[in-house]
């Protein structure tokens, strides 16, 4: 175990080349990146010391991201340009550091401060108007009883309090439709993302939308839908073949929000849940 001299909060994005990594893969890749860049990362104690890099929220396999958060603890102080350089030297392909802030070493852990996450998913075979009304129905509902698969069992829960906001938006310009796709539109949503009061899952909202529209959602590309359980989840969703299928492409987590950020955005007239 090495003493922590500095703590950096990294804001990073993930694009196509790193898209199909699981959370564990990502951790391993970042550790290698630090070694390549010779970044003096503090290590945790234990039999196999791990680099002290703490991601605010694991990113699902298949999910792209634009504004993720991680805390990196260093055993030696570095200047911001130096750290930027070293990160650039070894960063795995498909990850981009957008910003970095020097944080007080003793500041509270990052994960418990999370409040929400914004997602943008692009849906094939869905008309904008149909999506708009389905979104309105979800917003208007008082309760949205759904089931979530966990270790093979389905657990009933209420999706409504986890859904802070949802809108149909114009198609993601980066989502190239496959040749034969009929209609394409995108949906934006803000979901609660907390450690103690639950987190919404974008693909479950899409499934709820699909139910509303009388359609079936096929899994998002690359199996967004949980790592270990991806297979079962998929089998579950695809089952009723009779209904038309919504295909999800280019799922993006646009941003993670901390409690204080969301509060200040709300008070300045931003989106409210």
């Amino acid at each position: 175990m090495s003493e922590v001299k500095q703590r950096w909060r990294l804001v990073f994005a993930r694009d196509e080349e790193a898209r199909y990594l699981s959370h564990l893969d990502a951790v391993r890749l970042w550790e290698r990146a630090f070694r390549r860049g010779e970044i003096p990362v503090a290590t945790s104690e234990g039999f196999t010391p791990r680099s002290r890099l703490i991601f605010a929220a694991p990113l699902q396999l298949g999910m792209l991201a634009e504004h993720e958060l991680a805390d990196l603890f260093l055993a030696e102080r570095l200047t911001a340009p130096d750290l930027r350089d070293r990160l650039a030297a070894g960063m795995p392909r498909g990850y981009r550091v957008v910003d970095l802030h020097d944080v007080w070493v003793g500041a509270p852990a990052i994960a418990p401060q999370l409040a929400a996450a914004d997602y943008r998913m692009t849906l094939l075979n869905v008309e904008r108007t149909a999506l708009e009304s389905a979104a309105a129905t979800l917003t208007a509902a008082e309760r949205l009883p759904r089931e979530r698969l966990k270790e093979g069992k389905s657990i009933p829960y209420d999706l409504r309090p986890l859904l802070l906001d949802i809108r149909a938006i114009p198609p993601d310009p980066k989502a190239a439709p496959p040749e034969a796709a009929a209609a394409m539109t995108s949906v934006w949503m803000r979901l609660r993302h907390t450690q103690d009061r639950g987190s919404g899952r974008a693909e479950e909202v899409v499934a709820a939308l699909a139910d509303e529209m009388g359609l079936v959602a096929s899994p998002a590309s690359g199996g967004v839908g949980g790592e270990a359980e991806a297979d079962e989840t998929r089998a579950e969703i695809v089952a009723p073949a009779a209904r038309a299928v919504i295909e999800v492409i280019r799922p993006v987590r646009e941003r993670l929000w901390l409690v204080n950020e969301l509060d200040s955005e709300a008070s300045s007239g931003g989106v409210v849940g």
Partner: protein
Amino acid sequence: MVAAARPRRQPDTPEVGTGSVEQFHAPAPLSSATVERVLGKVRKPGRYAGGEWNSVQKDWAATALKWCFAYPDLYEIGMSNLGLRILYEVLNDRSDRLAERCFSPDVDLADELRAAGVPLWSIETRRPLREFDVLGLSLGYELVCTNMLEMLDLGGIGLTTGERSESDPLVIAGGSIVLNPEPIAGFVDAVVLGEGEDVVIEISDELERLGWHRRIRVGGIGERTGEWRRGVDRATALRALARIPGVYVPSLYRARYLADGRFDRLEALDAAAPMTITGRIAADFETHVRGVRQLVPNIGIVFDRAQLEVMRGCTRGCRFCGAGMQSRPLRERAPDVAVDAAEAILRATGYEEIGLTSLSTADYTHVREVATELRRRRPQTLLSLPSTRVDAFTVELVDAIAPTGKRGGFTFAPEAGSQRLRDTINKGVSDEEIERCAQLAFDRGWSSIKLYFMIGLPGETMDDVLAIAAISRRVLQMGHRRHGGRAQVKVNLSTFVPKVMTPFQWDGQDSTLEIEAKVGALRQAMHGKGLTISWHDPTSSILEAALGRGDRRLGPVIRRAWQKGARLDAWDEHFDYPTWLAAFAEAGLEPAWYAQRDIPTDERLPWAHLGAGVSTAFLLRDRKRALAARATADCHWGPCANCGVPAATGFACQTGEDGPRTLLVSVGDEGRGWRYIGPPGDPRRPTTASSAGPNALSGSGADVDGDNVEAGRGERRDRPYDLPGSEMQSKDAGPDGLASPVEAAGDESTG
């Protein structure tokens, strides 16, 4: 970690075709929408997505000859292969050429590609395989041959040489099984024997000289047919390749058979076709380390670590081992070369662990020196190494480099249960030695010992089989005394597979009934707490032997099996023996005839025109010794056995006997002391003819390894993953019946 001077080398970035006058063939890649859609429906899409560190994306318009390495097994296996990492770097080092990669798709992707009408693409730039100039196939195991067909088919390439169009790539195979490529001869345009580092360059130079990469439009300007031809026709290109040493072009020969089904002879159909072809040896292995910027996968693979080959070749002379017999002469890297290279590789990859690889790294003269120096320079880095020795030195070595703390299993591979049979296979370790090693491993904290044995070895009797039970029980008792109820002995049985170009190439396999009887008896003799036996259904071994000793008539059998659905045959969950039996039957052939027949030593062999250096005369001599249960000394320090390698390859051997090199060899009871053996005439040199100490002929394995990442499916049968990179690069290759892999040390759950 230190924040000292840091190199700022990025992995290769796309090369832009600056100033290049010639624009080369550059078809459009598959659209990302197409790829995303297909990958959205499969397990583990990270296998096919690319973006790995040190992978290279080049501009097609600015690169002449384009290779795609097609590894006919899943990503997790293929990416672990050191040979691929080496050749990828060797070819991409030239900015005007490129090499990309492709691995076998798992069945879900294969089905999805067929359903969507999407061709199999290369990982780097997502071009269909048929767009490349050369497809380099790495064949390290007999049972991957259906994967090869699957890749060709999905890649849009004609399956056989006759079905390929002028625009299809040349399909060139290398790897350990191509020492008998006759069963697959119809599917490959050329075969590279031996080590690939130099010959891939020679092949590339020749093809570029001939204009194989040039595309000349057929028809008038502006015609949109897309028709084109290459700068040279296929037949001419193949004849030119046949003149390169080590390159075998099967279509220039015809095989003849006798009326009773035996092989008669091979006839050359062209003046360019040499009648014997010997495997290549890389020119400068000792001094020049290639494969520094090794590919680093994004997802977990089987050997998820950096690898440095410290030694190539093996002179132990285990008579069942194809890799060992075929990889001579022995070459070692000097300690400073090895240490510097290891550091460079670690820096270039960011890996936290490095394997010092070879067929048996405990035999590497400088193993201690290199391990110690690496420990000193990079205390955080984990080391691992494979060894085929059963001796105290190995245990000490593994103990020294294994992490302390909880230790999982230590593996030894005595291979045979009785001393007599071990002498027959030239793995002459004694019972006492095995017990001493086991005791030492238990003393050093390992509570579980894995023992690898083969069933069905030539000359094996039921007594030999039951001796496995006896020694295993004795080892377990020792474990109980040291660790109580925690002690475990896991016995792993595999079926003997005769390998071509070994002294046992003429010996047939036992029939399934015999094998089952032996294993049944062994099971009866071995039960009790702490003792487990694992073995595999021997049918895949029959197929392995049949394909390994097969001839050209097996080509249609392989194709038929694939048509009937055989693929990923190396994986238990996919292997279906009845499919293969049916395919054999349709061709009027039987696997047993190929696998179980004792071939008379005067019969002509279908692979006789190919060689790896070791002479048939030596193999016959050594076989006689085997039948008399007599050992052949390891020429690393013992006398030369005149195996014929220098005459065939032009490489002089520097052995303890007649070479200038000085050797440090561990001998003695504890294996801890070093004894100096100098060149001939050196007063410190022992004088006995067989100077090998008691350990010299021992064998077995140890590898410090914890991270057996699952490839995401059932167990793959061929065990030795722990072998150095194989394929075109070194003849050993992994999975071909090598001594034994082995994990020892370490907590099996870490990593």
